[in-house]
């Protein structure tokens, strides 16, 4: 959270948070239809997924295109273990966590050897590999028909129970993520995002820190995937497709990169709002795409980031120093130069050398 120096600001934030939580917990009572409750359930879970993606992208500056892979591994893992191997919910989740940790470590070890765009491409290929694998291994996964009839534990029986479990899960994951990013490890992640070369020169083993964030966010995504599969009772190859990762990216970018909670705002917009609007309006996705492009071009900090920057600008005299956490990450902060050559300190970044067109690149700046 942006550290607001004035007490009134802090109080207002608490009040707002409390009110929001109250509203969320009361939602099943207030909602006109149980349909909206289930929409919000999936938005909460997608929010966690987007948040785990934000740990990679927004906090460490790693642009992965394979994050959906872990979501899918969680969903299929939990599904197969619970339906066909007789595991109960919690032991299935434990296995999923261990499995995803190993998988994330292996993929990280291979793909973190390259940076920037290369990393994005390699992770994308890994995810696509699993996507195809799941489609082809018909006898285990049900192929492109999806994996159905995942048993639901009794305590997760009804729509409302599912909602509350998802809500509590989301809050717990949010607090965990918040704790992580404000820990010393989190500040190294931020340092890597800002300038990996510098972080390395300060003596941090940046590779290990990046591997750590991949494993943590991968486990978080897998856990979310497992819960999601149990909530909706099925898993589908589409969970692993790049479209899912793209959706996550959209959520994080729209909500605000490097804010954690932005992922939830993005999930709310992409998921329930998208589903409702697309049922009335055929061109909704096109409109959404155009809006997204405009956000990338003109509000690169996303909704939450833009609001925060606007509030900061109102509160602070211009030119006052900003703490490292004060400003949200704007996607301009790149982990590496084009193609992954490590960023050399300061000079080439700020020069038109970064692109001869820097003169008209103003739209991309913070």
């Amino acid at each position, binding site marked *: 959270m942006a550290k607001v120096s004035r007490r009134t600001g802090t109080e207002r934030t608490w009040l707002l948070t409390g009110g929001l939580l109250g509203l969320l917990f009361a939602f099943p009572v207030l909602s006109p239809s149980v349909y909206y409750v289930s929409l919000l359930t999936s938005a909460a879970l997608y929010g966690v997924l987007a948040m785990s993606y934000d740990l990679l992208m927004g906090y460490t500056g790693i642009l992965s295109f394979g994050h959906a892979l872990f979501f899918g591994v969680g969903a299929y893992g939990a599904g197969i273990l619970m339906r066909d191997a007789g595991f109960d919910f919690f032991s299935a989740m434990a296995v999923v966590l261990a499995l995803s940790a190993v998988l994330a470590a292996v993929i990280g070890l291979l793909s973190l*050897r390259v940076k920037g765009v290369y990393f994005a491409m390699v992770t994308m*290929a890994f995810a696509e590999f699993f996507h195809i*694998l799941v489609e082809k291994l018909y006898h285990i996964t049900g192929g492109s028909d999806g994996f159905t009839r995942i048993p639901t534990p009794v305590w997760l029986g009804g729509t409302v129970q599912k909602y509350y479990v998802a809500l509590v899960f989301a809050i717990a994951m949010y607090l965990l993520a918040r704790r992580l990013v404000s820990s010393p490890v989190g500040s190294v992640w931020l340092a890597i995002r800002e300038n990996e070369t510098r972080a390395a020169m300060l003596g941090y083993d940046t590779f290990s820190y990046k591997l750590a964030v991949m494993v943590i966010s991968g486990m978080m995504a897998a856990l979310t995937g497992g819960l999601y599969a149990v909530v909706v009772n099925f898993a589908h190859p589409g969970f692993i497709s790049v479209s899912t990762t793209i959706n996550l*990216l*959209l959520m994080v970018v729209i909500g605000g990169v490097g804010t954690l909670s932005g992922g939830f705002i993005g999930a709310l917009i992409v998921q329930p709002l998208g589903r409702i609007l697309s049922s009335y309006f055929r061109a909704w996705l096109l409109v959404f795409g155009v809006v997204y492009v405009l956000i990338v071009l003109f509000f690169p900090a996303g909704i939450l980031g833009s609001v925060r920057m606007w509030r900061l600008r109102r509160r602070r005299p211009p030119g006052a120093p900003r703490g490292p956490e004060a400003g949200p990450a704007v996607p301009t902060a790149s982990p590496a130069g084009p193609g992954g050559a490590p960023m050399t300190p300061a000079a080439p970044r700020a020069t038109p050398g970064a*692109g001869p067109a820097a003169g008209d690149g103003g739209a991309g700046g913070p």
Partner: protein
Amino acid sequence: MELKVVVSLLLQGVSLGMLYFLIASGLSLIFGLMGVLNLAHGSLFMWGAYVAMTVYGLTGSFALGLVGGLLAGAALGVVLETTLIRRLYGNPVGQILLTLGLILVLDETVKLIWGPTLLPYPKPAFLAGSAEVLGRAFPHYRIFLIVLGALVWLVIHLVLNRTKVGLIIRAGVEDREMVTTLGIDVKKVFTGVFALGGALAALGGAAAGPFLLVYPQLGLNNLFPAIIVVVIGGLGSFTGSVIGGLLVGVTQSFVGYYEPQLAVAVNVALMALVLLVRPHGLLGHRGV
């Protein structure tokens, strides 16, 4: 394995490889020169297929269809570069996010214009048959793809190595800034290369249409093979995209013959192998 099977599989792999080369080369060149990973490249490929199919349907001329697709790709490339992508040079993450959004816009537009279902794009009669190669049937259409790919390779190779523009592109891939200090306005070249990349992708789509069928996921589905090819060949290397394309195509063809399920998996494994040995691809260099 019998020789005739080997030859047949090889030809099949080369035809597939040529297709991959057509998609990947533009992606690779654009990245090499501008540092832009144009994720919407697959969508341009798909637009090429749709426009070609439509023009072919209207005029009855397959060749006109190809030209139409090619022009549509070039035009889209120019429009995207001059209006949108240009704003984000020097901001690789911003570009990825932007071109990602363009996938959405381009693909949804295709759905609105042509509908969400699979559409027929018949092979022209003169390419519908098959030839006999060492006693095995080999479709004419695959021969056509090989010839087309080889032709495109030759033309681009000559442009890159024999013309001033080619010289500027090759130098720009190495060091854009230095090129500008020689009095060359690289931005104009950028637009040109985007047009070329779009045209190549769209031509690939136009030629692949009768082969892969035409549907709104065509773009995304072909983005991945293209990416694998580019990673293997080395981003920014034109020759790399030829080698990468052929390697992936041939591997896929041979593995697919024995174990169709594994064909794609093997390509990913191939990519992982190349990355372990040469992280920047077979012909990529660190600077890019």
